[in-house]
């Protein structure tokens, strides 16, 4: 037995003809607005450089994601650029190692184990995420404020096995510590799902009744499910916060039924990952030239509430965001 050869040259300074580049965007599925918008953003960028993006979805199935990646990497990888949303933290290492071995250019977003360093790799160009602790705290604070600084709240957690869910909840706990009058009555997982959030919220509403003054949800989908449950229970006095700024949540904020959310810009995320890969593959940007703090970084995010929601209702992609010299303009600093 022997190891299979493969992998590209160690040096990652690309010299690909732009026309030879294959752009791949991979997200969980196209049946949720955020990720669909992500892929559309990728398409926009691809169009910008006269290419098309191969859209891959793995239906939230880690195994399937790995399988797709390894099949992809078994093909022609010399000028392959991948912008990947790993399903969970633990899915990132094999993707990274596969890309490194095959010599494909990789940008990952959202999920990565804390102890995996991008700087240890040549083809893993960058990892982009939003500071979950920060967003969890921001909406936590907004929630505390909305209920007047004191009262009972419940929390809807995301898929327990993801960093995003854990970080966000950790941020919420920080916020709770800072607002001692706010009492966490219950926390349950609704797996980032609107339908599950609806059921869980209904149950918690009967369990705690009038004690509930606010609902903290780890994403907007769950917040929207909670809103639905509130409507069915005839409750209009409960503040709801979420994260992601999906269109429906923005509408709800505009209408005043929801309190706050935190932006994450799907279309930009879909484009920027490909842009970084493209710039490196064509040689316009050398890996060594990317600053260490731009190898794993927090992207800019905003707390959206009724005051500023109008600015976010239709996210715009500006071409300049994807210019090779402007790739890291949205950085809020290196991941801690």
């Amino acid at each position, binding site marked *: 037995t022997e190891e299979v050869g493969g992998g590209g040259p160690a040096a990652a300074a690309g010299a690909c003809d732009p026309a030879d580049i294959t752009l791949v965007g991979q997200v969980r599925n196209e049946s949720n607005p955020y990720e669909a918008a992500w892929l559309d953003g990728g398409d926009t960028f691809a169009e910008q450089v006269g290419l098309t993006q191969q859209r891959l979805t793995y239906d939230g199935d880690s195994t399937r994601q790995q399988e797709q990646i390894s099949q992809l990497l078994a093909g022609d990888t010399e000028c392959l650029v991948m912008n990947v949303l790993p399903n969970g933290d633990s899915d990132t290492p094999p993707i990274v190692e596969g890309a490194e071995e095959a010599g494909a250019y990789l940008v990952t977003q959202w999920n990565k184990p804390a102890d995996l360093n991008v700087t240890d790799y040549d083809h893993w160009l960058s990892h982009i995420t939003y500071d979950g602790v920060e967003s969890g705290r921001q909406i936590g604070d907004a929630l505390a404020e909305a209920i007047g600084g004191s009262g009972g709240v419940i929390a809807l957690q995301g898929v327990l096995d993801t960093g995003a869910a854990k970080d966000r909840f950790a941020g919420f706990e920080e916020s709770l510590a800072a607002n001692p009058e706010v009492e966490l009555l219950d926390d349950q997982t609704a797996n980032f799902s*609107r339908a599950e959030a609806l059921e869980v919220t209904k149950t918690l509403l*009967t369990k705690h009744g009038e004690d509930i003054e606010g609902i903290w949800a780890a994403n907007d989908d769950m917040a929207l499910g909670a809103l*639905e449950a509130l409507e069915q229970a005839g409750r209009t006095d409960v503040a709801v916060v979420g994260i992601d700024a999906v269109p429906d949540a923005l509408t709800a904020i505009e209408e005043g039924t929801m309190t706050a959310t935190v932006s994450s810009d799907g279309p930009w995320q879909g484009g920027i990952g490909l842009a970084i890969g493209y710039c490196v593959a064509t040689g316009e940007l050398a890996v060594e030239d990317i600053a260490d703090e731009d190898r794993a970084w927090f992207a800019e995010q905003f707390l959206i509430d009724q005051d500023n929601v109008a600015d976010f209702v239709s996210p715009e992609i500006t071409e300049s965001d994807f210019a090779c010299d402007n790739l890291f303009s949205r950085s809020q600093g290196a991941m801690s």
Partner: protein
Amino acid sequence: MTSPADADLEVVHARRPRPRRGVSLRDAGPPVALVVVFGIFAALSPGFRTLSNVQNVLDAAAVLTVVTCGITFVLMMGSIDLSAPGIMGASAIAVALLVANNRNDNDYGLLGVVLAVLLGAGLGCLSGLALVTLKVPSFMTTLGISAVGLGVATLMFAGVQPNVSDRMLAGLAVERFLGLAHLTWIAFACVLVGWLVQRYSRLGRYAFAIGGAEEVLALSGVRVAPYKVAVFTMAGAFYGLAGVMVTSQLGAGLVQAGRGYDFSAIAAAVVGGTLLIGGRGGILHSAVGVLLVTVLTNGLVQVGVSPYWQGGVQGLIVVAAVAAAVIPQRRRNQVTK
């Protein structure tokens, strides 16, 4: 050589064991389990035994009840149906796009609901047809149809969430009658219809008979295939309705509207006493099963079991409930699949 007739001069009348008719003891397990589980939670949690929580449990059971109504007929035939997620997804998106919504100018109201249910029936019909014409086991045809349904739903979804602004549809989940949401009454109606179909229609009795001995039906000159297709079609219509109900609850059409309902519904039906090999059980059994499962989900949250453990505890209790229900009817040489 004596003929048997000569030998038997006397009329021999033996006392025979009385043939079974009507409700039997072996059906008592699941309802008893339901009462016991309910009692335990009521004792453990004050929040659980409130009237509003009972309403909440019934409301929460609505969608699963409708899905289970559909699946029960399929299980009664001894087939299996995994198509609920796909069909529900397709009908959920379809109805959201047909009634007043944020994506297009449609405003078909009730007609939209009917069309979505018909879409479900159509998809169900397809899996039935594949079963009887291609002779592919229902496990596979329905799994395939589920994938097809999800694909169709994703196509219709086209990246933008359709939100429902139709008052009637949105109102079904919100407005109440006698303390229960309209959707819950719809679920009750489905159970009633299902029960009538099961008991008084040829379709229902034949579905039952197909599970008992399909080959015998054929030997009696009954063409089984149309009934099978009809059962899958009916199941599809129930899933379609369930998809509409989810849309009404969420106020939006979701591709994942039916995620997980396939296994929950089968589990509920089986917990209620419907056998997977067919020929036993029925709508009322399944309704009890649905309640048992829903009470468990609700009760575990009410008594504050850690979310990590909830699934496990639920699984354990389901197994225990079935075991308790099975023990009184254990027989030697009983076939358990």
